[in-house]
């Protein structure tokens, strides 16, 4: 998946000369927290709600009579961007490492959209199958290469729709886990079949700790 598949395309922007009050109103109306700042069609910064609060204070409405101040005084640069062809995991990693909540997306040198934390959460929720009603199953497995063919075979034989199948890298201190979301209210037959696979433990709630 690429950034262009998940980015928000309709982007509200401001310029360095926009009044901060106006920027704040745009954020409230649109219910978002980031505004790309454009100067001659180039992204020069991202203005955040925190930038505005730092300059204007936390008041819900600005006190009357204060001098008007432009975005230029609150914005901080330089701005980190990605392109439409970057994989989403790269965008996520940049945001995680730099501790930022939003990346402008560039195509042919111009702003094509933004990708925010919310966009990435939507992908995570979707990837984990949470948009579909289903039962969550967690498997602790031995050597992945040994058990995977048998697990896949059981899943394919069962007619329960598979909404999500996730497996991460191995960690030295923990058993490997497979996270499943299957679209059934009656997973007992599937669980019984998975239990038959050597090296697979199905995590289920137990009356004893």
């Amino acid at each position, binding site marked *: 998946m690429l950034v262009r598949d998940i980015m928000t395309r309709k982007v509200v922007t401001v310029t360095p000369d926009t009044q901060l009050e106006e920027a704040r109103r745009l954020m*409230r109306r649109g219910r978002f927290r980031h505004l790309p700042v454009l100067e001659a069609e180039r992204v020069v910064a991202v203005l955040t709600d925190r930038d505005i609060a730092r300059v204007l204070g936390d008041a*819900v*409405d600005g006190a009357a009579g204060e001098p008007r101040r432009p975005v230029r005084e609150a914005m901080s640069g330089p701005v980190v961007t990605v392109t439409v062809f970057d994989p989403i995991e790269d965008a996520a990693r940049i945001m995680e490492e730099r501790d930022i909540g939003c990346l402008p997306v560039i195509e042919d040198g111009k702003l094509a959209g933004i990708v925010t934390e919310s966009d990435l959460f939507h992908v995570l929720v979707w990837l984990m199958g*949470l948009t579909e*009603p*289903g*039962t*969550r199953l967690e498997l602790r497995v031995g050597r992945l290469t040994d058990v995977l063919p048998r697990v896949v075979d059981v899943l394919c034989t*069962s*007619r*329960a*729709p598979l909404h999500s199948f996730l497996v991460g890298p191995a960690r030295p201190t923990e058993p490997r886990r497979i996270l499943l*979301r299957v*679209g*059934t*209210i*009656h*997973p*007992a*037959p599937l669980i019984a079949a998975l239990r038959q696979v050597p090296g697979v433990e199905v995590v*289920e*709630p*137990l*009356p*004893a*700790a």
Partner: protein
Amino acid sequence: MTADGACFAWNPAILDYNFGAQHPLDPMRLRAFLDLLEDAGLLAPDDPRRLTTTLATRDELELVHRPAYVDAVQKLSEGPPYDEALAELYGFGSDDNPAFEGMHQAAAAIVGASLAAARAVAEGACGHAFSPGGGLHHALPERASGFCIYNDIAVAIADLVHRREWKVLYVDFDAHHGDGVQAAFYDDPRVLTFSIHETGRHLFPGTGFLREMGVGAGLGYAVNMPVSAFTTDDSWVEAVEAILPGLAARFQPDIIVSQHGCDGHAWDPLSHLRLTTSAFARAAQLVHELAHDYCDGRWLALGGGGYDVLGVVPRAWTLVWAEVAHQPRPETVPEPWRDRWQVFATDPLPARFLDDPAEVVPPIPRDPEIVDENRGKVAMVREFAFPGLLRTAFPWPGQDRPRWPEQRPAAQSRTERVDTAKGPAFLRDLAPPSLVARLDIDPGMRAFMRRPDREHKLLINIAGLPDTNLTIAHTPEGVIVGHVSMTEAEGRWAPVPRLYEVAIEIAAGWRRTHLASHLLRFVTSADYVEDYILVALGYTWHWDLDGSGLNAFQYRTMLSRLFAKYGFDVQPTDDPEIMGSETNVLLARVGSRVPYDVYETFHNRLFRRAAWAF
């Protein structure tokens, strides 16, 4: 049939709702149930309380379902060979909901019965109605899900809302989250959905977590209580009793629609709960009481899940019908019935309607932890689901609140006269219940109970409680036009000594007269408040926005400014309920003599980083 009587909505075509021999949802459960009703002498074959019902029409189904979905169900209903691609697209591609011949008619018969029951109640033909074939709460607008093809509950509620603009309280006792009904009305403040179910952590449909509270105008109108796996009767009933009455009081519904899925029973193969028929009977009884308290008795009860076909379902729903029909709970399961049905059962059929949990449920080593987990969640639900004043008025017997003897102000009641644009008003703190009872109440006093007469009762009740301080504003003619209450905080705040929760109300006609300012100044001018922390929790969905003419942002600003004048500051918090809406606000006033360690305890509670992933 009479207005206080009961109706039984049934159609023999419902027995054709059958996904096949190996499927857990076996129509035998309904056959055995109907048979038991007769044997128990609760419903005769020619009983006048039986409603004649028909199949729901396309228009009725389309109140909830998309036309393309109804088309697909009708097409698949013609029988094999099935269009596999079509079946898969609309949720009929799995063993949960395999397509079967005649399924449209069978599913429409269920919807028709629930609709007939809803209309009988709406039109006053009867007070309560039971549609035992209904309760298919998982069906989605364009997909079959969790054994449910058409969502009879959502159709019936939509019909009530369309025809009457009624406020509907939906209560779902099934072991599984009532996701389809919640989704159908997620943004609608006229339908409050409450579902208590096993947490979605290990159970279908994997939703129904505490944070699901509604969206848009419906924020605060979806309430979920996910209990832990292996929850037993006492803890489950405690949760229901701690939440439902306060919810009904806050919402003041015109009708209650309840789903009585009994798959939380210890014997049921599809959930991990360990409940018994005793808990189900108590739940039905409580809904019944609330229907009479708030809805002139209007109550629509429905069936639901239940996969111990003979051991549980017939008894559980016979108990529901006894409640609906105002008949005493039957005690012994008639022997002829047991003889007749025992041959189809693998285990001996129980002899009594009400189970004794000690006999039915094997000991659960983790039980004390489960009880604690559930209590923690109940506290969170109570905090966001209804205002503090209602938490005080509907106390929660299960919670041991640490009492702080030094907390009660030993001060004398004070009075003051203030002049406002509407004329003079008297303020009185530590108001005794006898005074509150003698006074009348302004018709514009309805913020908490939605009706002035009930608001008056609430204030009398609050005034009489230990450890509360009710300050009222009344006119010289003896009419209450405002109040500020200080009540002992519970749940998350209970461990903080010297902490009171503050609520304020001004009669609709007395707003913009500065009465609120007068009241807050008067309350905070008492010397004893310097020993306490006063907290005001502002939840958008508790505010009377219509009455104030303000939007939520303006209301928050108004509230914050008003309280700021009397030493209340907006507190930053990571409280998930407060963070649930950006217009929610937590205001606190820390008295000048509050010791530092108390302040610190309070401050730590603001940032609890609670685990919400139950």
